[in-house]
């Protein structure tokens, strides 16, 4: 309405200065260190040699890394394949308002508020065939289930755990999207004699599109960084079945403590994420403007 665009005001920089300082302290400095490491060979704190891109080359060639990357991709994609539809369905079935809505909201969001390692612990307990309900039930059903012994089982358990943990995020995003649809749309649809499916297909889905896309990218990236849950549950095993990038990296960095490659790898990892993040950001700019144009 107001034809006044944001006024240009360079003084605004002073307002964001605090943020810059904080984040710089906890982001830029460390990043520099990483870069610094990635191009040196640290034999001992005193003796370091400049090695240029050597580590990068090495890391790129590292078979284990390729394997980990592959595992990561498969996992992230599966996560999306399950959580997106499930989330939408959940969003659609959540009550719109009243105390019911509050209660459901709280229950649904609960899993997001559980420390990630506790999530691991919960499933660790839940899945054990001797003391866990899930494990025991499966045993009782005659499935020789063991997330510690069987790679497939381990992988599946991690997946289910992630679904349990993160589907609410997608659901809440979709839910928010749904709530933003004006009633007139539903009324119009009723008057046009639209079927429930038509309402979903032509009103709800299009209106949710923006937030859902964001949900997709968020889930993809977060699952790309998954560390704690599998670490607690399976410790990356059996074998490397559930060793994803983050854990692979920490093993390198902390475990074997060969800093150079670790740093180099960190940077590569970081760049991958950065790329994804870039896509996400532009997406939201696009969606944002669309919403403004299509705004009522």
């Amino acid at each position, binding site marked *: 309405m*107001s034809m006044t665009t944001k006024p240009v005001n360079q003084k605004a920089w002073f307002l964001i200065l605090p943020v810059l300082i904080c984040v710089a302290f906890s982001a830029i*400095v460390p990043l520099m260190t*990483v870069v610094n490491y990635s191009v040196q060979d640290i034999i001992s704190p005193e003796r370091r040699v400049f090695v240029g891109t050597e580590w990068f080359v090495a890391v790129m060639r590292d078979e284990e890394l390729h394997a980990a990357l592959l595992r990561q991709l498969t996992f992230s994609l599966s996560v999306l394949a399950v959580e997106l539809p499930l989330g939408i369905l959940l969003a659609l079935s959540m009550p719109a308002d009243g105390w019911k809505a509050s209660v459901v909201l*709280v229950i649904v969001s609960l899993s997001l508020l559980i*420390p990630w390692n506790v999530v691991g612990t919960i499933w660790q307990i839940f899945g054990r065939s001797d*003391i866990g309900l899930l494990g025991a039930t499966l045993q009782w059903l005659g499935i020789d289930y063991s997330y510690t012994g069987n790679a497939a089982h381990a992988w599946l358990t991690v997946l289910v755990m992630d679904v349990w943990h993160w589907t609410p995020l997608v659901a809440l995003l979709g839910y928010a999207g749904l709530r933003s649809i004006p009633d007139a749309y*539903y009324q119009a649809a009723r008057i046009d004699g639209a079927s429930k499916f038509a309402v979903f297909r032509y009103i709800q889905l299009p209106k949710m599109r923006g937030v859902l896309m964001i949900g997709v990218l968020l889930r993809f990236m977060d699952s790309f960084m998954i560390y704690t849950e599998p670490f607690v549950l399976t410790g990356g095993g059996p074998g490397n079945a559930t060793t994803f990038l983050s854990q692979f990296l920490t093993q390198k960095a902390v475990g074997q403590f060969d800093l150079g490659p670790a740093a180099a790898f960190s940077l590569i990892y970081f760049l991958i994420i950065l790329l994804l993040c870039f896509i996400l950001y532009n997406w939201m700019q696009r969606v944002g403007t669309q919403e403004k144009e299509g705004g009522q």
Partner: protein
Amino acid sequence: MSKPKFQKRTIFLFAYIVFALVPIYWMVNMSFKTNQEIVASFSLFPQHFTWDNYHTILTDPSWYSGYINSLIYVSMNMVITLTVSLPAAYAFSRYSFLGDKHVFFWLLTNRMTPPAVFLLPFFQLYTTVGLMDTHLAVALAHLLFSVPLAVWILEGFMSGIPREIDETAYIDGYTFPRFFLTIFLPLIKAGVGVAAFFCFMFSWVELLLARTLTSVNAKPIVATMTRTVSASGMDWATLAAAGVLTIVPGAIVIWFVRNYIAKGFAMGRV
């Protein structure tokens, strides 16, 4: 609005809620059992109901200090985040200035950085500045994730407030700080609540950094737990109790922001 499908939907919803709660219930259930019972018998309800596990945790310093530590650095993180984010968010929502888009994007990237990447450098950095094993260290490290988020959410809420209100205030003769505190802040209460909620959420649940940057004095509960695990002779019961106790604060916080949480998720796009 959807009468016929209503049934199907509730059934699904119910099913999901079961799926969501059963694992938690199982842990709760376990936390009231004794280790012997856990290992020996398999039951849906504690046969010999006991508070012992909670008692151990709440009396044994090595346990409860963990909670205190976590709560300390989480609150520190929340306070710092909000104080720095509010002005920044205002700047982003009200003015355009050189490189605003880029700065915003750069902030975002931090939210997306895998903690693992910063593990080492943090370790080094905080050792050199002597913050190792302090609450402040963790709080600062977590700024990396909470600040971008907070700025983002607050910016969303602030943009919902017509700029004319600011102008009217300036015309009326308000100074910026006075306007910001007495007029503007009350208008974005909800936003602040949601932002605080997400700070809490990310700081409370994060393990990797919290564990790496602490050893004894600031050791967070999450770390305490993992170490208990790795220490052999699984003390399932206590572990379960500890887990339950970590869920409680979260549950409480949610209850307070429940009405804004959906909105917050959409705005901050988390």
